[in-house]
């Protein structure tokens, strides 16, 4: 029950994009078309889960025992970057179909703050392994959900009369703000 609540809270209440405001670069960048939004969402789910697991292990087995937790951020960035690169090379060889689908999105999220943010949150909240995995996957699902919803809205912009000064990113940011307000409503559930 606790785990289900954790998942729902990560997906809706503490949505990484709309409540925690992490990872807004891809949120604005790849949300113009539904196709790319779905691709990016899938890539984030995959990377966030793997990256969180590895960083959690690094944190628990190296950083904490040797008392160098203050190196967390820089160590995590290095681990995530190397990991994403490795995964890319690995997939290209062994899973060409998946590489075709996710390939171009992987480098984009190497230094995504949402990935790093979730990795840091895992450590800060002192989750155990199971909780950590649930939280990471749920956060990523929340990211994908928000991105897909937002892309659905933005696809409609193309056929709507938008005043000249508000076109493109401007209306995107306004819409993101309104979506964020709407998601705040989930706070009542918590």
């Amino acid at each position, binding site marked *: 029950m606790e785990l289900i609540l954790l998942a729902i809270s990560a997906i809706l209440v503490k949505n990484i994009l709309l409540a925690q405001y992490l990872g807004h670069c891809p949120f604005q960048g790849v949300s113009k078309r539904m196709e790319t939004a779905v691709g990016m969402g899938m890539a984030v789910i995959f990377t966030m889960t793997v990256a969180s697991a590895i960083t959690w292990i690094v944190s628990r087995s*190296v950083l904490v025992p*040797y008392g160098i937790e203050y190196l967390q951020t820089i*160590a995590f960035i290095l681990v995530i970057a*190397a990991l994403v690169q490795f995964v890319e090379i690995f997939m290209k060889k062994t899973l060409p179909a998946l590489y075709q689908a996710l390939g171009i999105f992987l480098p984009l999220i190497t230094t995504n703050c949402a990935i790093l943010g979730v990795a840091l949150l895992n450590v800060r909240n002192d989750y155990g392994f199971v909780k950590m995995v649930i939280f990471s996957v749920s956060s990523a699902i929340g990211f994908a959900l928000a991105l897909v919803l937002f892309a659905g809205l933005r696809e409609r912009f193309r056929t709507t009369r938008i005043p000249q000064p508000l076109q493109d990113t401007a209306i995107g940011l306004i819409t993101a703000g309104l979506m964020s307000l709407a998601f705040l409503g989930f706070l009542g559930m918590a």
Partner: protein
Amino acid sequence: MTIPLIFMGALGAGAALLLGIASRVFYVKEDPRISEVEAALPGANCGGCGYAGCRACAEAIVSGKAPCNVCVAGGAETAIEVGAILGIPVEIKEPELAWTSCTYGVGEADPIYTYSGAQDCQAAVALFGGSKLCPIGCIGLGSCVKACQFDALSMDEDRLPVFNPKKCIACGACVEACPKNIIALTSATKRIQAEYTTDECTAPCQRACPTGIDIPSYINAIRVGQPEGALRIIKEKCPLPLVCGRICPAPCEIECRRNLTPDDPVAINDLKRFAADYEMQTGRHVNPYKAPDSGRRTAVIGGGTEGLTAAYYLARLGHAPTLYEAKPELGGVLRYVISPSRLPDGVLDHEIKGILEMGVTARTGQVLGRDFTVHSLLADGYDAVLLATGGFDSRKVLRPGTGKETLIPGVRLMIDVLPALGNDAPAPAGRRVTIVGGVRRALDVARACLAGGAEQVTIVTGHPLGRIPTELRETDELEREGIRVRPRTVISALWGAEERLTSVSLEEASETPGVALAVSLVDTDLLIVAAGRIPELVIVPVREALGTEEDEEPVFRGKWRTIEIIRTLPGHGGEGVFSSPEPGRISDASAVVQAILSGRRVVRGIHQHFSGGIIAPIRQLVVEADGILDVSEIEGVSALPRQRPAVPAPEPGTEADWTNTEEIAGLDPTSAGKEAERCLQCGLICYRQAM
């Protein structure tokens, strides 16, 4: 202090080692040319090539699945660069452009409702197919403009798309985006072969014109003072504007919408003559686009209207035509039958000179059967021989002393062999005879052939068994005599070797519609044709490999065949090479414009044969489709007097030379401009209201 340093160093080194090993272990062997080709491509990822992005396109090119010139965005330069990387020769694609036929914007066309929903054509079409009454009209919300990645499209003040030919690379994105399917990619070659379909906006006059000239466009060009531009539009469809401007019966003027008001039709033909005369007065020829040399040579037998037209279009498509004419000068009926007071020789000479300038070689005084034969032309290396002896009765083309009975080996006209006519010619000599058409006299001819030593006679008729004379229905009895009757059948091809006919292909239609034709080959050394003249036939060499080696180029060894030059839709009949002529089809020479149409259609068939394609039937032709949207009354148009060309009066005291002086003068520039103002610039249902 040491621990963090060691940790970071170890982490960095570990990551580097991992990636280093991974890049070795998981190395994907990739053709380096893929990246090179990708770099040569424009990187627009437009998808115009049919692949998902430039990378996929480069992979397809390197693996040989796509040709070097597949990239439409890069055009010729990219194709050459890609060809250089791969080291293979490049065929430059003919440039294409996007284009639409709609000329009346939402503000001017008749609406069925006012639309104020989402600014997207796709969405607007969902509501009763758009706000316009016209089913093929542009709804003006600019989805095509949004789809264009090359900034080649914009909407004008009438909310119609404007194509910038300098930027358009014909990727086809706008064609995909348009829910009305009114944007098409076009090229000069495609336009030459095009016939109007119901998917295009056409004016009534344009549909009535057998050659299909874009009449509203050329009248508009005259109106804005560009007679040369007008002539360019005319010459797209009609290579003989000087001739047509004088002797065309002008079926277009009967359809003119000005007839719906108490007013005369626009003087369409006089305006055409005005544009053509303007060119003649300048002494130059306005020559339209000509495709590069295709490396093929063609021979056209007959230098009349149809032969000249066919040679003109063959030249425009780059198939190096040579025109063979029996008479000392080109022109056929135009020169030898039509009165010079209607069509002076000087005018005809100027017209023919213009056609020859397009790259047509003319050999006059060359008689088929005496100076050359179909086989000798094929042996000379021509890739196709077109028989365009149309307007004159084919029999008159045969002259005494040629030593040949027939134009095409083994083909004779029935009238020459009919026993009842008391022909003094000997009975037709053929061992295996095929008779096509003329069912009422076919049996007499067949029995005469049998008496003359024939072993087998086949009577071919397009009619079903129930609609032929009763004596032909006794198939079993006739079979015992050696006569086979083939109802519902047409001849689709002739086959021969050198100066002999060897066999004919028969196509038998099934009783049940929709079931495929039964095709058979019948040995024939004599074919008797009931029609009064030999229709257009295109004869091509049959090339065969001499030995068994695979890389050997097939060569011509004397065998030839005819090819199908037009295929109609099922149910319309008229298929087969000897079917009866129908208006608007090939083999109709009732007016000069009909012969021009025939010439162009035959060239379409020859070009498709050269392109290796099967002659595709044209769907939804405007001339065949029923219920074309039209208007039955017009409003908001005031009557304007029709401008009439002057009849020149002979100078007092002189004897006018009427034999070579034109009866009617053309329009002068002022009256031509006034007349062009009278044109309503009609579309399918739109027309110019405020005059």
